[in-house]
C-alpha cells in the first residue's frame, strides 16, 4: 500500500471527520477517515483533490492539488451539463 496516491476529500462529516477516497486507475480503492483539522486548510472548507503519501502502512502526508481540483471540477460540471436537463424541461409523454 506504500506510495503516493491521487485522492479526494469526499466529505467532512459533522464538521469533524474527513473522508478521503484513495484512487488507482480511476477507481476508488481505499477510504481513510481522519480528523478534519489534519487536512490542509483549503480542503477543510471545500474538499478537493489531494496527493496522499503512505509510508510503512501509515499516512505520511497530504498535499492539496489546486490545479487538479479545478480541472476535475470543470470536467465534472461539463459532463453533468452535457448529460442532464432540468426536470421542468422534460417533454410530456
Amino acid at each position, binding site marked *: 500500500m506504500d506510495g503516493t496516491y491521487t485522492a479526494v476529500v469526499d466529505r467532512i462529516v459533522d464538521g469533524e471527520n474527513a473522508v478521503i477516497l484513495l*484512487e488507482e486507475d480511476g477507481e476508488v480503492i481505499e477510504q481513510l477517515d481522519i480528523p478534519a483539522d489534519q487536512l490542509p486548510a483549503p480542503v477543510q472548507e471545500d474538499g478537493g483533490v489531494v496527493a496522499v503519501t503512505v509510508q510503512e502502512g501509515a499516512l505520511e502526508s497530504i498535499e492539496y492539488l489546486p490545479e487538479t481540483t479545478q480541472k476535475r471540477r470543470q470536467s465534472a460540471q461539463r459532463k453533468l451539463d452535457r448529460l442532464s436537463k432540468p426536470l*421542468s424541461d422534460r417533454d410530456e409523454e
Partner: protein
Amino acid sequence: MRIWVVVAIAVILLLTGCVDGTDSATDAIDEDDADALEDADDDAGNDENGESDADGVPDGELTIHHIDVGQADSTLIVTPEGETILIDTGDWPQDGAAVIAYLEERGIDRIDHLVATHGHADHIGGHAAVIEHFETEGDGIGAAYDSGVPADSATYENYLDAIDEHDVELFLVEEGDELPLEDNLKATVLNPPADYDGSDLHYSSVAIRFEFGDFRYLTTGDAEQDAEQRMVDDWAEKLEADVYHAGHHGSSTSSTPAFMDAVTPEIAIVSSAYESQYGHPDEEVLERYDESGIETYWTGVHGDITVTTEGSSVDVETGESFSSDPADLLEEKPGDDTEAISPAPITGGIVVPVPG
C-alpha cells in the same frame, strides 16, 4: 383441501418469522395529520385509471424498503402497480452489490426512477454498478434524477459515465418539481432550492415528500440544519409526514427542533451502521425523538426496515426484532469510545466494513 393450504401458509409464515426474526408493527395514521393537507386529497382523486376510490384512497399497497447498507443510504419504493423508485445506492465499497441483491431477491428487474440525493460516495456508491446491471441484465433504468451539484470523486465520475454509456435520461430537480410517476403516488421535490448555483452538496441534497392516500413520507438525504431551516421557511405546510427518513443518518446536524416541529412524524427511520464511525444516530437526536414519542427504527439494529401502507395505516416490518423506543436504541448504541476517529495505519484493507 383449502384448510391444508391455509395451515401450510401459516406454518411457512411462522418458520419465516423464526428464521428472520421478522418483527412487525401496525399504526393507524393520525387523522389530524391526514386532514392537514387538503390539496393532497385533490391530487389523490386523479383516478382516471380507477386506481383510487371515491375517498381518494388508492387501491393496493405502497412499500418503502430501507435497505440495510451500513453507514450509508439506499431506499426502494414500490407502488401498487410495481413502479420502482430507488433513492441512493449505498457506499462505494459495496459497489451496489447489496442493493442489486436485495432488488433481485424481490424479482425487480427495472428501476423506473433512480434518484441521487447528492454526490457523496455513501449515497451514490452503487450508482454506476446499478445502472450497468439493470441496463445490461435487466429491463433498464427509466430515468435518473440528480441535485445538479457535481462531486469530485471517481465514484461520482463513474456514475456520470454509466449514465452516458447507457443513454439514461438524467434530470436535475429542484423545489416544486414533481417526479413523473405513472402510479397513484405523488412525489414533490422540496430541496434543492430553485436556481441554486452553489457547491454545497448537503445544502442542495434532494428532499422528496411522497403522498399516497392519507399517508405522507419525507426523505431529505443529508440535508442539514441550514437546508432544514430553509424548508421550514419555504415549505412548512408540506413538511408534515407520518414517516420521516432521518436526515444525514441521524446526525445532530439534522432533525433539528424547528424542522421536527414542522414534520411531526409518528415514525422515524435511521439508516446508519451499528458501530457508526461517526456516532450516528446522535444521542441528542434520539433524545429528541424520545421526547416527541416518535417510534424509531434503525438499520444498525433492525436491519432492513420495510414500511407498508394502503394509504390509511402503516405497517413496519424489520429484519431483526428490537424495540422501537428511542430510549432503548440509545441504551443499545455503542458508547463514545468506539466512535473515535484516528488516523489508523493503512493496511490495504477497506477501512469501512462492508455489511455481509
